[in-house]
């Protein structure tokens, strides 16, 4: 099932994705979105072609190396005649009453095993360790659930995989890619339930010391303190 997404990564982000200069957690979110979104897939292959041309046209002052012998070593290696066999991976997440099929990259990531943790308010979280700079997780919001109003410590990227949710800025469904910076403040709620993949780019502030108390998924006080600051 491919549904047309309404919210996409910015062109700037796709360029960084193509260049390989994003944090890996974000790369994974974009990769998964691209698998679900024809528009961005097309856009990315154009950006890739352009990046290749730029790469070849750059006149760098690097000395021209002599790699003699290397090419000869290489051609003595065997070639690959067949694509590698597909590994057996978890490609679905089983929810209460139905299963959700995952984009390949997430299926591979999830195959290390998911441990679900209840965070209260009908929110469940399964953390994954994909790199040292981001916190990556699946979030499942039960039907009728609502997270406390929260502001982000860093940026938060969310990819909807199943169901839908709303916040003050919109309604998001499967394949939608939502990027929030720390200035944004929102309060997601889901009528029908929702499975998302989400990437937070400053995991430390979420797990350390006082910041833990502010973690929106754990504490409701934050709503008052944020409101108090007039945000």
């Amino acid at each position, binding site marked *: 099932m491919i549904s047309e997404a309404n919210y996409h990564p910015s062109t700037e982000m796709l360029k960084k994705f*193509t*260049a*390989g200069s994003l944090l*890996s957690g974000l*790369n*994974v979110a974009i*990769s998964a979105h691209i*698998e679900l979104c024809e528009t961005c897939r*097309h856009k990315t*292959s*154009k950006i*890739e*072609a352009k*990046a*290749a*041309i730029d*790469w*070849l046209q*750059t006149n*760098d002052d*690097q000395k*021209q*190396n002599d*790699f003699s012998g*290397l*090419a*000869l070593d*290489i*051609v003595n*290696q*065997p*070639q*690959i*005649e067949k*694509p590698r066999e*597909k590994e057996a991976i978890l490609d679905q997440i089983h929810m209460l009453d139905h299963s959700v099929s995952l984009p*390949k*990259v997430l299926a*591979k*990531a999830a195959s*290390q095993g998911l441990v679900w943790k209840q965070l209260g308010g009908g929110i469940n979280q399964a953390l*994954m*360790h*994909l*790199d*040292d700079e981001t916190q990556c997780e699946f979030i499942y919001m039960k039907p009728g659930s609502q997270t406390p109003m929260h502001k982000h410590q860093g940026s938060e990227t969310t990819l909807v995989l199943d169901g839908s949710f709303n916040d003050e800025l919109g309604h998001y469904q499967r394949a939608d890619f939502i990027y929030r910076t720390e200035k944004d403040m929102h309060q997601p709620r889901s009528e029908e339930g929702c499975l998302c993949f989400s990437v937070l780019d400053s995991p430390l502030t979420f797990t350390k010391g006082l910041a833990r108390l502010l973690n929106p998924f754990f504490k409701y006080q934050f709503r008052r303190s944020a409101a108090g600051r007039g945000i």
Partner: protein
Amino acid sequence: MDNLAEKQFAVRKASPPGCTEVGMVPSVENNLDPTSDEALLVKVSNSKSKEAFDQLFDRFANKVFAHGMKIMRNEQMAKDLVQEAMLTVWQKAPLYNMDKGNVQSWIFTITRNRCFDMLRKQKRQSAVLSADDIWPAGFEDAEALSEAERGSVEVQISQIEKLVRQLPAAQQAVVEQIHILNRTHEEAAQFLEIPLGTLKSRLRLAMGKLRQSLGTES
């Protein structure tokens, strides 16, 4: 297919009108410029040509090195990247699909991916996902061909012929090689001067269309 590939393809497709009968399909690839990166890679792919690889190596090795210096700022690592990336070019040449993008883009993505993996290894980061998982190999053929070849087709030959003639010339040529002239995939790729990956992908597309038209799609 991106625009670039479409354009290149259009140039190659200049074949005389009226020779679309099955059995007289013009060989659309034969006018590939022999000095182009594409032609060299086809030779690497189809006849394991060391000379052709040598030329590709000369064209790209220092560009790969420059990319490594820019990202990793270390001469030894940049040299290692040249080895890793160019080895991948050699090893994966038979999987390259020219319908999905040009050789430059393909080698660019290989360089980026090997560089990404090297950096991650250096930072001792989790190895759950490799670059090839994150950037799916759009230029290569991952799916097995058997899928497209499965299923019995029991339709009048004349109907099939008509449908084959409606396929794009490049796909007709492949169907002709495999199903009419009974050549192996390797022989057909050699003859048409296209990478094996491209041949398989065209055959899959063609068979998919035929089965769809014939209503035998499972």
